[in-house]
């Protein structure tokens, strides 16, 4: 195991020192949060310190360039009540080599990779090749990152993961993609899938379809079809999905003859007048011998949202009302508030519904390169607990050079 922290910090320092050579620069943000709340196990002052940066080390002619992109975070409890929580987390830290090899972009280091058949945070290498305008090939490989050991490199024998995507765009609005992803964790194959997807984004009508085949389970695990329409006043989207529950093949549950779910979903949004939009959603989940459905509707403007939500079926039933306000007080200050009320029952055997409330009230300042946000939160559950929470967040954006 190799500690990543020193490697990433050294790389960033080296690249920052390269500034201000011609074409180089560094930009990013430093964020500090303190989240104070009380739980049955005591008072917490959960703290977060995050640094996201992009350092351009060299810029050549055209698109050529070298940059280091990083994002990591320290978490800890200033009250010392959650000793297991203090940790470093490297979200990503990769060196990008742009067009040093013709028509190719290469990322080396920790990075988030995704295709339509899987995703992972990977310590490895990705190559994006564009042999001609209509085609893009992405290949990646490395060791997947375990969430609980985020600050370490996993060995290839435990976590070797690789895959790729080939996308072909005969027209700018149409993409046909082939995907492949083999992910390994804890020494066992998590999944090994291939898939095809098709995406068409016309002026008003958009379609998306995806088929995923699991090579380990030898079956089609996921089929998704979506059609959506939008114009100046309307948006609607309908979706059908049939999916085999996805359990890593290293799990004992991968042996169960699981029931395939069939989901139907309809979303709409209608501009009623000016900036006021009516929104709604209906979702139905069909199993062999059971089903559940959910619906929500409400109004939305640029500053306010009010939504009612109902859900019933094998997962339990609930009704919820949600309101949000986000009001610009002047060019720098924004006030915001939220309120949530839910009544729910998580199983049929529960005779009376439980209730949960939550609310928040806050103020945000954005000026120069600073973003400061303060918020008070209130949560209450009749069965469980209630508490007040306070959040203070300060973000400093920075940048130098780079032109």
């Amino acid at each position, binding site marked *: 195991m190799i500690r990543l922290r020193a490697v990433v910090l050294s790389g960033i320092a080296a690249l920052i020192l390269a500034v201000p050579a011609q074409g180089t620069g560094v*930009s990013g943000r430093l964020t500090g*949060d303190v*989240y104070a709340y009380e739980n049955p196990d005591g008072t917490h002052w959960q703290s977060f310190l995050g640094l996201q940066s992009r350092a351009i080390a060299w810029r050549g*002619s055209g698109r050529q360039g070298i940059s280091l992109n990083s994002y990591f975070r320290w978490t800890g409890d200033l009250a010392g009540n959650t000793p297991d929580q203090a940790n470093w987390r490297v979200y*990503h830290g990769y060196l990008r080599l742009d067009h040093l090899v013709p028509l190719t972009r290469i990322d080396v280091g920790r990075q*988030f990779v995704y295709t*339509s058949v899987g995703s992972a945070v990977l310590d490895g290498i990705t190559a994006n090749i564009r042999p001609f305008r209509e085609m893009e090939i992405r290949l990646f490989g490395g060791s997947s990152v375990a*969430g*609980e050991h985020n600050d370490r490199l996993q060995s290839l024998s435990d976590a070797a993961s690789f895959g790729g*995507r080939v*996308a072909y765009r005969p027209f700018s609005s149409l*993409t046909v*993609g082939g*995907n492949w992803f083999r992910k390994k964790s804890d*020494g*066992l194959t998590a999944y090994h899938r291939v898939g095809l997807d*098709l995406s*068409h984004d016309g002026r008003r*009508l958009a*379609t998306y379809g995806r088929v995923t085949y699991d090579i380990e*389970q*030898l079956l089609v695990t996921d*089929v998704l*079809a979506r059609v959506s329409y*939008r114009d100046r006043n309307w948006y609607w*989207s309908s979706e059908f999905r049939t999916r085999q*529950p996805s*359990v890593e093949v*290293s*799990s*004992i*549950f*991968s*042996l*169960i*003859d*699981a*029931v395939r*779910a069939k989901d139907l*979903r309809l*979303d709409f*949004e209608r501009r009623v007048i000016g900036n006021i939009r009516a929104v709604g959603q209906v979702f139905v989940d069909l199993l062999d011998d*059971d089903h*559940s459905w959910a619906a929500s509707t409400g109004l*939305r403007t*640029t500053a306010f949202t009010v939504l009612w939500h109902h*859900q019933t079926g*094998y997962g*339990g039933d609930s009704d919820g009302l949600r309101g949000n306000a986000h009001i610009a007080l002047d060019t720098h200050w924004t006030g915001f508030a939220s309120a*949530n009320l839910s009544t729910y029952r*998580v199983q049929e*055997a529960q005779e009376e519904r439980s209730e949960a409330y*939550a609310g*928040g009230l806050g103020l945000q300042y954005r000026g120069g*390169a600073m973003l400061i946000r303060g918020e008070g*939160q209130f949560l209450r559950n009749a069965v469980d607990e209630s508490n007040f929470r306070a*959040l203070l967040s300060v973000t400093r*954006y920075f940048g130098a050079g*780079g*032109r």
Partner: protein
Amino acid sequence: MKSMKRYMMIVAPIMLLVGLTVAQTETPVKKKPGDIIFSHFFHVQENEIDCETCHGDIATSTENVDRNLPDMEVCADCHDVEDEEGCVICHRSPDDPQPSVHVITGFAFNHQAHVERKVACATCHAEMTSDHPVVKTAISVKAQCMQCHNNVTAESRCAACHGDRYQLADIHPTAWRHGHGEEASAREAWCASCHHEQVDCQDCHQGDNLQGNIHELNYVFIHGLDAGSKNIDCTRCHNRREFCTDCHERNLRIPLAHSTAGWLSEHGRAARQDPENCASCHETDDPSCSRSGCHADLDGIRGTDPRFHAAAMSRFDGHGAWHGDNGYVCYQCHVNTNAEGIGFCGYCHR
């Protein structure tokens, strides 16, 4: 009949999609090239002519409708425009010569403001100064704009460039969040035109929901509803095994359903319906399912205990990867006796 139905469930939506796509896919239009033949590479790179020589009014241009392309009089400073035999050098149709086409975009762009801030022409028009003789795009792609319009060097409000033409809700309606993963996979470049790739993904996908941006604040109380149904697919963002157990184990909380009287008889159905939910707490090395005796392979005789993996067993037939790997999931229940006719090995090796 059942397999036919299943087949149709898969094929029908695909056929529908392909049909819709073919129906609306535009026939590629062969755009007629403009009349002007012009090589930036020849002028800028080979002859080192300044941009201002041809685009003389650019420093005072404040609107995107300003025509910042040179008239023929400007060309005449270097070219002999009176020479009729030389028309073909610059015009594809010398018998019907036309001026260069001025493409008006919908963006609010102020050249003067950028020139005053000493932004080099190549910052936005990098392709114009490249070594490639043929330039395909004269105007910067949006990702290049965002290099400076990052809220530090310059503002990044949508309206700064788009004016009132678009609102955020036009680009991202309420339902957008549900399907944005597929969109990001299929059209990564489109997302990257506004979002700084991995940073904006990870802010949400690996964030802490401190401000209730992803789930409402009381979600901690009601998340069991979504976890128990399939309305929201938790695994799109969360590795449930790591994410759920972090809180449930620390606070010693089990799902309420587990404590009901009928759970013992009901849990098999629940596991078949939603094994993802079970797997978020009970994992391969969790002995509560297999080693407590309930699902253990006690007699080692093939097929006598159909309570587990009845229909899914076919994939383990033959010598698969599992056969020589003692870490494989099979051996959580079965004992590798490594001997013919005995126990698990004896299922096949008689």
